[in-house]
């Protein structure tokens, strides 16, 4: 049945329809953003991506936010997960529950209740858009946890750790020089997904009145629709490239590492 001609035709038609639905809007965005006056084509809107100072500031802010979020997430999550796996296995269920909790508590709810916490953050660190890093780490936790957990499960961490400890390595060496290099693909995976999420985040930034990239794109839409569509398309394309790189990296690691 699987290779019957009827099924093959059905498959081609359905895939074509899906392709139209998913790629159509992307092409429309390209058309919309390059529209000039009287039916001409112009790249002005795309030039604005580098020329518009507000948009530039916001793009830089979002990229920095992505970087800081990944760093803080890795610092916080990786040692904790490795430690739990090696030394406190009873806490696995608790850790999993806590890391998946942000999936159940919508970002909108978090931002409604977080203004007090952010008053403290502003008190200590001043009012800067990079303060969003702290709440973004919470948002990326479920995705990062799954990626790192998958990588940790695929290596026999306990045996590696025991072997290293019996050779006299400290716990720091075990974590930093034995385990981490072996879960590199999982870490990269977590990093890429976090970057995609941070770059696309709008809810918390807009309701806390910070100006990250998505907030400024939305704002631009009110005065200059072409530029905001160009910026949206650029962001989608960037995320696509990122996740494509991720799938390539993941594959190459699997072929050489195992």
């Amino acid at each position, binding site marked *: 049945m699987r290779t019957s001609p009827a099924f093959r035709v059905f498959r081609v038609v359905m895939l074509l329809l899906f392709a139209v639905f998913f790629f159509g809007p992307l092409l429309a965005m390209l058309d919309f953003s390059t529209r000039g006056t009287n039916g001409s084509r112009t790249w002005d809107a795309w030039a604005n991506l580098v020329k518009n100072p507000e948009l530039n500031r916001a793009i830089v802010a979002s990229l920095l936010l992505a970087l800081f979020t990944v760093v803080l997430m890795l610092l916080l999550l990786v040692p904790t997960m490795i430690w739990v796996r090696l030394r406190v296995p009873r806490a696995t269920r608790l850790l999993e529950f806590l890391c998946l909790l942000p999936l159940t508590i919508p970002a909108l709810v978090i931002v409604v*209740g977080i*203004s*007090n*916490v*952010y*008053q*403290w953050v*502003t*008190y200590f660190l*001043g*009012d800067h858009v990079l303060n969003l890093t702290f709440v973004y780490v919470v948002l990326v936790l479920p995705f990062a946890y799954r990626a790192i957990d998958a990588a940790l499960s695929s290596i026999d961490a306990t045996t590696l750790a025991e072997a290293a400890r019996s050779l006299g390595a400290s716990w720091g060496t075990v974590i930093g020089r034995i385990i981490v290099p072996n879960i590199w693909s999982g870490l990269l995976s977590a990093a890429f997904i976090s970057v995609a999420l941070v770059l696309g985040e709008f809810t918390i930034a807009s309701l*806390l*009145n910070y*100006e990250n990239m998505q907030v400024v794109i939305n*704002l631009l*839409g*009110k*005065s*200059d*629709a072409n530029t905001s569509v160009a910026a949206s398309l650029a962001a989608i394309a960037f995320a696509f490239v990122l996740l494509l790189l991720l799938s390539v990296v993941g594959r190459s690691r699997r072929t050489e590492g195992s």
Partner: protein
Amino acid sequence: MASRTLRVSLVAAVGVAALAACAPPAKEKGSGGSGTDAATATSAADLGGMGALVKAAKKEGKLNVIALPPDWANYGNIIKTFGDKYGIQVTSQQPDAGSQDEIDAAKRTKGTDRAPDVFDLGQAVALANTSMYAKYKVASFNDIDARFKDANGAWVNDYGGYMAIGYDSAKVPAPKSIDDLLGPKYKGKVALNGDPTTSGAGFSGVLMAAVAKGGSADNIKPGVDFFSQMKKAGNLVPVDPTSATIKSGQTPVVIDWDYTNAAHVNDVATWKVALLPNVDPVGGFYYQAINADAPHPAAARLWEEFLFSDQGQNLWLAGGARPIRADAMVKAGTIDKAKYDALPKVTGTPVIPTTEQTTKMSDYLAKNWAAAVK
């Protein structure tokens, strides 16, 4: 084992709740630069005159303003003129924010260098937050009628306007009465600037329709019914009119303040603004106030002096708004006569609701607007 986990989690939950309750942090007032004198000055004289105020402001060198779109009553020009004139760097935050967002931002960034120094607020929010303002009387304080200011200078009306209908004269005919907007020529073309339960301009737009259909500041129902009719006829577009929607032709008819409507001439050359003839116009003033915890108190006070000076008032007039000192300036001959005469003519008694009337009308809208325009 399970009961121990339960006990531990209960203790943890109570602890977290307690933490959340005592979350409001102790805030010391940020030593806002040099201006501890400026922070308590209630007039320029307190600091030793205008010259001293200018000097103190220049020393601070910065000013944070919030929620001032560049094409709203010519604020873009006003900010630039002020910055150039005094060499002060003005940071214009969140130009798209509403009045409530201004107050929220001030509360959230209290004590930091980025807190807003001054507010420009709609009536409801302005009068609900008077404890946040510093008392200050500008040099021209006495020019302003007592109705339009707080006696101690906590807030002062700065400019006002009337609800009007802006339209692209190349696409639709001029509306002669409000019922014209129900006609086939306006199908899919009319937009209200904001949801009336969220935006002051939207609220006043519905009030304008109410007054035109026989209602008043005590009875907004006719306005809600009118918009319901417009929605059913397919004439009402459920979209916020912006520069982009006006340029693209999506919203060729906009119900908004006359001064914000006037700015759209920069988007579409054939844009015209008209008040409804033979209908009492709905008016509204905005409120200027200085943040009591302003990080740059001298610059904030200088900004107020600038706004209420002849130069500042004329800049607002250039944006199509009616400056609060217009009458005094007409008498003194300092008003920009050409622009003043070009303002849309007003007939009838302006309708300006009181706080009580506004609250009653808002409650009615909260209950009935969503269903009316579904």
